[in-house]
């Protein structure tokens, strides 16, 4: 630009050369600037992207733990299916992208090469199903129904099938040992949702897209323990996903086993007896409604009286939990949750609530003693009790004259309790009590017994039941008065009249409310599990335990055992003397009271039973039957909706369950050999280090076997120990997955 040579060169060329030079410089300057921008200013951002680029996670799912009964019989375990899968990353390393291997594999599996290649291709917008939707770094399953022979062919010639694995994989199975279904207690699994995946993403146990999560029952309650921890291996990969180095690896930890206090045999007996009782009730004629009883639903709870552990819990109607395995079909889902389904998914032992009827009288008796009434005082048991023109009848109009509290409990005399509750109501100030004055002994006692709130059983979504005390009335009135006042008519139909009265004074404790409440009618609601808790406490001398099903959580290798200890919930608000009186009265129910006709010939001298029957009226429906019983070890509560009286509907069934537990024969003799569980199971099942469990014998159908006079195919001899189970040994002897799930495989067949 400076020295224009003396060549006679024209300035035009010279100037243009300078322009070229400047252009060149600016181009280089542009590159420099862009470099600075990318590497210095945005460098961190790109560094992050680069590391995300080359690290891939491969997640090895953890095997879900089994749910075992008290003796180690698996109620829920894993079935092993032979899954043949292909590793895309391995296939891509081959010259022909693994085409030859896949073709060979197709031959072994009896599929066409096209079918196989379609299964391993990745899904994208242009690729129709079948295609693989998951991570390309995850082995892609080609079939989950491979036979042992096919798996063997693949495994034995591994060098001919690079990148192909044939491994047993665990699939949840509800084995129903000895036909014990246990559906609602076990719950079910369903696929994890996107939301849950995102939520668990950065935790130490992330979900896989293929994961199943416990949705109800024990599967949900103990999901975390059962699920285990998926193994995560981080690989450094290149652009084709070929592994160029292993960065980190956490091995998968199989889920722990849950040992429950359920005894599969007793469970089966309870389920069977509940079913039979309902079937029988449907054949009985109901004089009040003029048609047969509907017996539409029911529940039974068998509980260890001294610990609160649940030995069996059945709910009807029921369903097959295996319907959920492998994804529930739309049809099944409708059948289980539709309007006409009668909701078999509900566990009515903890989610069904109804008025307790006379079984509630133990609460009222305790309340009366608390209120200062003498146990042995003479309380008039008249055939009816009139209050302000309203007549409250004794059940079936019986009249026993003046009787003690114990006798009133034994013969279930309604009018005695009407009278006591009415007197207390009046003492508390009647319809308009002074503030803070009312003692409300009858309501307080119910709360002290633990009613009106969850028992805390280790199952999700337990309901509370209801104690219609003043607080509840106030809240309920506030929520409903608008609609009551709208529909209520002074001289309308029954419902309209009730609404009219409720509109006026539904927030107040009326005389009739208190009278009805004293015999467990009206707005009172309890759940079978609450009844079991109360009667269990009466059996053990007055200590209420939190009902529990989980007994211990045992690691997959059996080494760590976390016991779930019985937890005391409360002491019943009764003195030893009152307890003794009640105990005697309730024994009287079995020998000479309302349940006596169903317990004739029972060896009461050897196995003393106590019982209280209940028949609750429900407006617009047939009566709900209740039967709450206990021996010194167990308490059994059964309820059937729309089935008549407690003893009539459930007496035989409950007696049969006791017979099964203690081995009582039809003639009243006791055969100790046939007793299923004369004393509660104390020891935990042994889980060996290899994960196998010594499974005790279980009959094909314990219910049929024990029912005298009825033909049942009995099958002595249970199953063998899974560790030596010969099935499918051809494949994968050593994988951890095999030893679970395999064990009880043939139990059903």
């Amino acid at each position: 630009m400076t020295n224009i040579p003396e060549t006679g060169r024209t300035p035009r060329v010279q100037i243009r050369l300078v322009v070229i030079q400047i252009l060149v410089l600016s181009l280089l300057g542009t590159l420099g600037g862009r470099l600075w921008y990318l590497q210095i200013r945005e460098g961190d951002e790109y560094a992050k992207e680069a590391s995300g680029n080359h690290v891939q996670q491969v997640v090895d799912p953890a095997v879900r733990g089994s749910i075992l009964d008290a003796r180690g019989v698996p109620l829920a375990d894993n079935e092993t299916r032979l899954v043949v899968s292909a590793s895309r990353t391995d296939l891509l390393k081959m010259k022909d992208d693994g085409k030859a291997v896949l073709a060979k594999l197709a031959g072994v599996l009896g599929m066409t090469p096209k079918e196989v290649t379609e299964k391993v291709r990745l899904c994208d917008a242009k690729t129709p199903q079948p295609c693989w939707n998951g991570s390309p770094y995850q082995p892609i399953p080609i079939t989950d129904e491979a036979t042992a022979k096919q798996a063997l062919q693949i495994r034995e010639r591994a060098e001919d099938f690079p990148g192909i694995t044939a491994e047993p994989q665990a699939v949840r199975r509800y084995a129903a040992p000895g036909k014990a279904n246990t559906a609602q207690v076990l719950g079910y699994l369903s696929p994890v949702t996107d939301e849950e995946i995102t939520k668990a993403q950065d935790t130490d146990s992330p979900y896989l897209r293929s994961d199943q999560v416990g949705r109800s029952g024990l599967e949900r309650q103990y999901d975390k323990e059962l699920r285990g921890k998926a193994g995560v291996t981080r690989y450094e990969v290149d652009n084709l996903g070929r592994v160029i180095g292993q960065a980190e690896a956490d091995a998968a930890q199989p889920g722990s086993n849950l040992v429950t206090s359920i005894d599969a045999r007793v469970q089966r007996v309870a389920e069977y007896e509940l079913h039979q009782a309902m079937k029988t009730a449907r054949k009985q004629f109901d004089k009040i409604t003029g048609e047969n009883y509907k017996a539409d639903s029911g529940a039974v709870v068998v509980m260890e009286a001294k610990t609160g552990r649940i030995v069996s819990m059945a709910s009807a109607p029921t369903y097959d939990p295996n319907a959920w395995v492998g994804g529930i079909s739309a049809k099944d889902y409708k059948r289980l949750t539709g309007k006409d389904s009668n909701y078999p998914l509900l566990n009515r032992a903890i989610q069904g609530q109804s008025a307790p009827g006379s079984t509630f009288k133990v609460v009222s008796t305790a309340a009366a003693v608390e209120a200062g009434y003498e146990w042995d005082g003479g309380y008039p048991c008249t055939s009816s009790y009139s209050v302000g023109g309203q007549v409250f009848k004794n059940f079936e109009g019986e009249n026993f004259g003046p009787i003690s509290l114990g006798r009133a409990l034994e013969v279930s005399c309604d009018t005695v309790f009407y009278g006591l509750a009415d007197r207390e109501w009046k003492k508390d100030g009647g319809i308009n009590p002074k503030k803070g004055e009312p003692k409300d002994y009858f309501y307080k006692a119910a709360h002290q017994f633990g009613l009106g709130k969850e028992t805390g059983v280790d199952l999700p979504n337990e309901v509370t039941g209801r104690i219609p005390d003043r607080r509840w009335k106030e809240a309920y009135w506030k929520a409903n008065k608008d609609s009551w006042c709208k529909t209520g008519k002074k001289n309308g139909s029954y419902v309209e009249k009730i609404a009219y009265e409720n509109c006026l004074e539904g927030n107040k404790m009326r005389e009739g409310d208190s009278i009805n409440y004293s015999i467990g009618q009206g707005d009172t609601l309890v759940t079978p599990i609450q009844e079991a808790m109360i009667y269990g406490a009466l059996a053990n001398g007055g200590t209420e335990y939190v009902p529990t099903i989980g007994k211990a959580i045992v690691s997959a290798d059996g080494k760590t055992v976390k016991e779930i200890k019985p937890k005391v919930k409360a002491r019943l608000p009764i003195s030893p003397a009152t307890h003794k009186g009640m105990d005697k009265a309730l024994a009287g129910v079995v020998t000479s009271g309302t349940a006596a006709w169903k317990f004739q010939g029972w060896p009461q001298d050897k196995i003393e039973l106590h019982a209280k029957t209940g028949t609750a009226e429900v407006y617009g429906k047939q009566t709900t039957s209740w039967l709450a019983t206990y021996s010194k070890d167990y308490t059994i509560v059964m309820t059937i909706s729309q089935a008549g009286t407690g003893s009539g509907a459930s007496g035989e069934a409950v007696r049969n369950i006791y017979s099964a537990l203690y081995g009582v024969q039809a003639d009243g003799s006791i055969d100790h050999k046939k007793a299923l569980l004369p004393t509660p199971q104390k020891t935990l099942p042994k889980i060996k280090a290899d994960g196998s469990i010594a499974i005790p014998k279980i009959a094909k159908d314990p219910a049929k076997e024990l029912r005298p006079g009825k033909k049942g195919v009995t099958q002595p001899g249970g199953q063998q120990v899974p560790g030596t189970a010969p099935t499918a040994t051809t494949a994968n002897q050593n994988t951890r997955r095999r030893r679970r799930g395999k064990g009880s495989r043939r139990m059903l067949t």
Partner: protein
Amino acid sequence: MTGANSFSVSGYGPRRAGWTRVFARDSLARRLDWPILLAALALSAIGSVLVFSATRNRTEINQGDPYYFLLRHILNTGIGFALMIGTVWIGHRTLRTAVPLLYGASVFLILMVLTPLGTTVNGAHSWIVLGGGFSLQPSEFVKITIILGMAMLLAARVDAGDKPYPDHRTVLQALGLAAVPMLIVMLMPDLGSVMVMVIIVLGVLLASGASNRWVFGLLGAGAAGAIAMWQLHVLDEYQIARFAAFANPSLDPAGVGYNTNQARIAIGSGGLTGAGLFHGSQTTGQFVPEQQTDFVFTVAGEELGFVGAILIVLLLGVVLWRACRIARETTELYGTIVAAGIVAWFAFQSFENIGMTLGIMPVTGLPLPFVSYGGSSMFSVWVAVGLLQSIRVQRPMSA
């Protein structure tokens, strides 16, 4: 004066050429442009390291020998260096007489590519496979013969002193000379090379002193042509998308967009000092395609960081800066035009190559001079260096 100069040097030429000429005091060695030579050697050396880093793990292309590409790159550089010496030896002026022959030979070679002898690599049918792992990309040599041929035509009458500037007829002839191989290359299609040639033609015309009308006319024609191609849908949708993908990788995420994205990640992740040689995860993981050739700059960006990348740009700057000086300082228009053509070529090709890895230029298959792996490119750029040296050596020892 030019005549005298020309005479004095070529007078020494054939008979007394040889080592005496090289070692004579105040002679060749003193007059060589050392900065260009050293910068070019440094770029080639860096290039061999980068090529090694990019290919030592690529077993599918290096025949299992990690040094396969490294050795070949060094061999190519050596041959290129020899070609440079040969070019200086012969001298650009002597070559001037051989231009028609060279031009004819190069056009013949690119025509060969269109016959079944040619091979397609990465969508461009621009290669002739020689066997033994060697192949030829004749379009690289065409760049030189276009420069030499146009310079010969445009400078003839000016250097003879007949006219101050090339007249319209000469310009037309020169354009025609460039157009023939450019059309053939376009048929391959090797659009990247065509773009370089267009820039070379522009640079040559500028330096020749041809009328402004030609320069702007050519620019206008280029722009109009591009718009027409776009508007008349001569190109398919995907071709446009591919072209535009450098700015918006989502237009062609599986193709060019992927390259652009990965290249940008590689360079960006380098930061100031880089991941260290052989430690770049993008390079080791082979996320960037064509990394030893067209995308070799990403290796520098990732493993050597800003420091290494800017060093390459600076070294290229040295070559270009000195080449500009040579263009300015030589007395005859022929030398000026050749030097300016080489500047245009190197500058644009470097800018395009680095620019596409940085995401500011569309992706085309152009090598980075001296650095990228590839014999044809290496030979032609070293011949170009030889031409520059020759122009420098043979300029008058004035001033």
